């Protein structure tokens, strides 16, 4: 069986290259792969495109990626939260590009990529600024915007448990975008609280089948959203 387990954080993330598009899981702080993000910061990669819901909190996690100058573009739904001050400073200084996508559309665009589809028609955003430049179509009398797939070179996600096949389960609202991003990337890297033996996960309850997982790194439990020292 292919060994998907990375023994070190560096092994888990080192294939990420300058200019890559990273889908990064999490909504608020649950489900954010904070350890993997620190790993990417340590690599000092440049010109990354980051796809994630929020624009970072404080100085840790995704905010640290911004602060260390790794990111050229952010695709997100909710950039202007108070705690995203690091992003705001870079944006105001013209140092980072921003694409705002409605949250359901962001999720669906990634699923569309993962499912091998070429696009979908959504009622979300019809007639709004976010539909400017996009094709619109009328189906059964209702207007829709044509949205295109959103692929990642890598997905960085967080899960609760993994088995050697890479099958994943999540924990509460830490699930969020993670299973979708796992589908949508060329290479999916998981940080996971615990790894278990083959057959320890009931095949009925697996949320992400291992076919979508390339690499996992076991972190154990940690308190989320805390500033940690850079390694």
């Amino acid at each position: 069986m292919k060994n998907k387990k990375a023994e070190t954080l560096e092994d888990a993330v080192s294939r990420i290259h300058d200019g890559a598009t990273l889908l990064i899981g999490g909504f608020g702080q649950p489900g954010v792969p904070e350890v993997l993000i620190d790993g990417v910061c340590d690599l000092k990669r440049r010109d990354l495109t980051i796809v994630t819901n929020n624009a970072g909190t404080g100085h840790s996690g995704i905010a640290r990626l911004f602060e260390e100058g790794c990111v050229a573009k952010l695709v997100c739904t909710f950039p202007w939260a108070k705690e995203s001050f690091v992003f705001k400073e870079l944006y105001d200084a013209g140092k980072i590009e921003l694409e705002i996508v409605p949250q359901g559309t962001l999720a669906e665009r990634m699923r569309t990529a993962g499912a091998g589809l070429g696009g979908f028609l959504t009622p979300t955003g019809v007639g709004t600024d976010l539909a400017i430049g996009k094709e619109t179509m009328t189906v059964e009398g209702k207007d829709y915007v044509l949205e295109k797939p959103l692929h990642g070179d890598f997905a960085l996600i967080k899960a609760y448990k993994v088995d050697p096949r890479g099958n994943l389960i999540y924990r509460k609202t830490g699930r969020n975008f993670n299973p979708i991003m796992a589908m949508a990337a060329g290479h999916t890297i998981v940080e996971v609280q615990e790894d278990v033996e083959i057959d320890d996960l009931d095949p009925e309850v697996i949320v992400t089948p291992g076919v979508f997982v390339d690499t996992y790194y076991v972190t154990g439990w940690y308190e989320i959203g805390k500033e940690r020292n850079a390694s």
Partner: protein
Amino acid sequence: MSDEQTNLLTRQQIAARAAQDMEDGWLVNLGIGMPTMIPTFIPRERDVMFHSENGLIGMGPPPAEGEADQDLISAGKELVTMVPGGAYVHHTDSFAIARGGRLDCAVLGAFQVAANGDLCNWRLPNQTSGSVGGAMDIAAGSKRVFAMMTHTARDGAAKIVAERSYPLTAGGVVTRIFTDMAVISVTPDGLVLDEVAPGLTADEVQAVTDAPLIMNSVGTIPIAA
């Protein structure tokens, strides 16, 4: 105007009034801010489930002291709980629920609501960007959209208008408006003034509303003692 000020509903009172409209058996999504105050005002005997777009069906109140779980938050990023019979889903399933018409109601804040039900709540006209979050999907997909807001902006400008001048969130979706002055229904005939806050007159509400209000039988918003 100083007399009128004292007759404005508090945020709690607006939430309490909106809570009265939540019907038994509904699944409801609550926007960030004032709408999140609604659950505490729903009568115990009514079964209303809350959907939080980050993948939570059956959102419950904030956790008791010492019982918070760092992995269980609302879309507003507050620690919450889950009620019995809830379920966790991922983001596309969560928005399938929202877009697919499975939300009986969404209660959202608003910068501006137009007489045709246009909702504007994601970006101010003088901003180059805004935080859209899930508002566009939820507003486009819910069976009903309630706008909940102060009746006028801080500078006194009307927020209920004949035609929107703000960037659109979703067109023609608002079905009812709950403010600190009134309850207004959006109908094919126009805006109907259903109720005014105690101590206010219908004309006083019309005076700070930039769209004509139909006034057939205007009631008074009931306020709990």
